[in-house]
C-alpha cells in the first residue's frame, strides 16, 4: 500500500538547514495498523505529513497504492488526498460552525457527491462511531472524545485507502483514549490501513506494528501482539 525508499527531508531555518528525515525506508501492507513512535523532533510528524501529501519530500520516492507521488501541484495533491487519504488530528480540527453531520460530509462535498447521498453517508459513518443521535450538534456541544470520533467518521466518510492519525489521543484522557483506540481497532479489523503517530507507549501497543524513529532514521521496526482496547472499555 505504502512504499517509501530513501526518503530525505530538510527544512531551511534562516541560514541553517535542519535535516529532519535522513533516509527512511519503509513500507506498509494492506490492512496494517502501524504506530510511528519517537520523541519530539524525531521527524515522526514530518513523515506523516509527507505520507499525507501535506508536505513534499526532497529526495527519495513515495508510492501510494501503486501511484508514484511526485511533482504534485496543489490541485492534484488535493484530489489525491481526497481520494486516498483520511486525516485525524490531535486537535480534532472540526469546523466549529458546522454540525457533526456537516463536518462528516465535508470530504464528500469535495468529492462532488450529491447532497442527499452525502447526508446518508454522513449518518452512516456517525452511526459507526456511535454518534448518530449527535448528528445535529455543533462541535462545541460535544466532548473531546466525541469530537475525535466525529473526526474519525469524517476521515472514514471519503472511504480512503489509508487513514493517517496524528496523535489522535494526544488531547484526551486515558479512558477516552482507549475508547478512540477501540474504534480505530474496529475500523482496522474491517480491513482499513491505518497509521498512527503517537508518543504514548500504551497507545502504540494497541497497534500491530511499531516503528521507532530517532533523529530522522528508523531505529526499530517490530511487529507486536496487539493489545485490545476493548478490555479497558466498559
Amino acid at each position, binding site marked *: 500500500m505504502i512504499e517509501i525508499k530513501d526518503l530525505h527531508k530538510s527544512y531551511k531555518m534562516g541560514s541553517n538547514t535542519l535535516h529532519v528525515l535522513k533516509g527512511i525506508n519503509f513500507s506498509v501492507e494492506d490492512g496494517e495498523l502501524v504506530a510511528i513512535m519517537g520523541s519530539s523532533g524525531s521527524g515522526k510528524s514530518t513523515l506523516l*505529513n509527507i505520507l*499525507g501529501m*501535506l*508536505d513534499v519530500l526532497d529526495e527519495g520516492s513515495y508510492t501510494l497504492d501503486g501511484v508514484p507521488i511526485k511533482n504534485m501541484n*496543489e*490541485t492534484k495533491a*488535493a*484530489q489525491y*488526498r*481526497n*481520494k486516498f487519504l483520511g*486525516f485525524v*488530528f490531535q*486537535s480534532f*480540527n472540526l*469546523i466549529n*460552525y*458546522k454540525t457533526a453531520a*456537516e463536518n462528516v460530509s*465535508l*470530504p464528500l*462535498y*469535495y*468529492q462532488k457527491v450529491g*447532497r442527499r447521498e452525502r447526508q446518508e453517508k454522513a449518518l452512516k459513518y456517525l452511526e459507526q462511531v456511535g454518534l448518530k443521535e449527535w448528528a445535529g450538534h455543533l462541535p462545541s456541544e460535544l466532548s473531546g472524545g466525541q469530537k475525535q470520533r466525529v473526526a474519525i467518521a*469524517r476521515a472514514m466518510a*471519503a472511504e480512503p485507502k489509508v487513514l493517517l492519525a496524528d496523535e489522535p489521543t494526544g488531547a484526551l484522557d486515558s479512558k477516552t483514549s482507549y475508547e478512540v483506540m477501540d474504534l480505530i481497532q474496529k475500523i482496522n479489523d474491517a480491513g482499513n490501513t491505518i497509521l498512527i503517530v503517537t508518543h504514548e507507549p500504551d497507545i502504540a501497543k494497541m497497534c500491530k506494528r511499531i516503528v521507532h524513529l530517532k533523529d530522522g532514521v528508523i531505529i526499530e521496526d517490530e511487529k507486536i501482539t496487539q493489545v485490545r482496547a476493548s478490555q479497558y472499555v466498559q
Partner: protein
Amino acid sequence: MRFIFDTNTWQEIFGSIGKNRTRTIITVIGVLWGIFIYIALSGAAKGMDNGFEEVFENVAKNSMFVWAQNTSMPYEGFRTGRPIQLKLEDATSIKNRIPEIQYIAPRNVRGVFGDAPGTIVRGQKFGSYNVYGDFPVFTKITTKKIYDGGRFINDADIEQARKVCVIGERTEKELFEKGEMPIGKFIRIDNVFFQVVGVHKFSQGGGFDSDGDIFIPFSTYRKLYNSGNNVGWFSIAAYDDADVLKVEESVKTLLKSIHRVNPEDERAFGSFNLGEIFGRVSGFAKGLTFLSLVVGIATILAGVIGIGNILLISVKERTKEIGVRRALGATPREVRAQIILESVFLTVTAGIMGIILGAVVLTIINNATQDLDFPYSNPTVPIPYVIGALAIMVILGTLIGLIPAQRAVSIKPIDALREE
C-alpha cells in the same frame, strides 16, 4: 458555472458568512451606504433636472426678450444717453428680415418697470395688478393655461380693440366670491370696464410673471394708456433648429440700424436669452448627475475595499479551517472560488439593499416636495445605470475578493494545520 448554482456552494458560503454575523452586517453597511448615496444622489439630480424641465415647459426654450435702453455712444449727431423707444413697426421688420424667427410678440406692461400698476375695481373690492397689452401670438411663445370655459385674447379682440381681459388666479380669488364664475363678468381697469373672458393658471416661467397678471388686447392697451405705437419689449421665439444666440445678435443689430444707434453700442438694447439660461440650468443638473456618479462610485469603492479588508481578516481567522478543508481535498481553485463568491455575494446583497433603500428615500423626498415651490419632480435612476452599478459591484467584489482568496490559497495546508 455549475459551481455557482450548486446549493452546496451556497450552504458553504452562508455557513462561513453567518459565522460572524455582526461583523458581516457592519461590513455590508459600507457598500450599502455607497450604492444608497449613488442612487439617492443621482435620483435627486434627475428629479431636479425634471423639476427645471417643468419650470421651463411653458416657455419656448429657444425664446428671448429684447428691450430698449439708453444709448451709450454718440452716433450720427445724436448725443450719448438718448432713450430709445421700440415701435410696433419694428416687429414687422424683425419678422421680415430675420428668417430664423418663428414668432414675435410685441408686449407692453404697466406695473413692472417702476410705473404704477393698474388699479382694478370690482364692486367693493379692488386691488393693484400688473396689466399687460398682448397679441394672441404671445401664447405661442409662453403657454398660458386658461381655465375651463375661458379663452385668451384673439385676433378679433385686437382688430376691434375690445375691452376684454384675461385675469390671473389670484385676481380671481381676490375680486370674486368663492365659487363665482368670473367669465362674462365685468371689472374696472383704471376706470374702464372690461369683460373677463378667461382666467389663466399661473405657472412659473421665469421673468416677472405673477399669478395676478391681467392681459388685455394690445390695441385696447394703447388706447387705455395712450401708448401709441410704443412697445415695451419683444418676446421672440426662434425656430427649434436656430441658434438663439445668433438670432439674438441679429435682432439687436437690426434694431440698432432701425433706431440709428452706433453698431458698437452694447448698451442701447437689452436682451435676455431663455435658451442660454435653460442651457445653464440643465448643465447644472447634468453636472449634478455627474457629481453623484463620481461620489457614488467612490463611496461604493470604499465600501468594497472594506469588504476586502474584512475578508482578509476572516481568511486569517479561518486559516486553520482552510487548512482542514484542503487536507480533506479542497483544491486551491475551490478555496479561491468560495472566497471570491463570498465577496461578490456580500457586495451584491449590499448593493440590492442599497438600491431599495435609495428608491424608498427618493419616493419619500418626492412625496414631501410635491406641494412645495421647489423644482423637483419624479426622481428616477435609469435602469441601465442601476444595472451598471450592480455590474461594477460584481466586478469590484471579484477583484477585491481575489486578494483574500490568493492569501487563503498561499497558505500551505500544513502550515494552516500547525497554527494553534
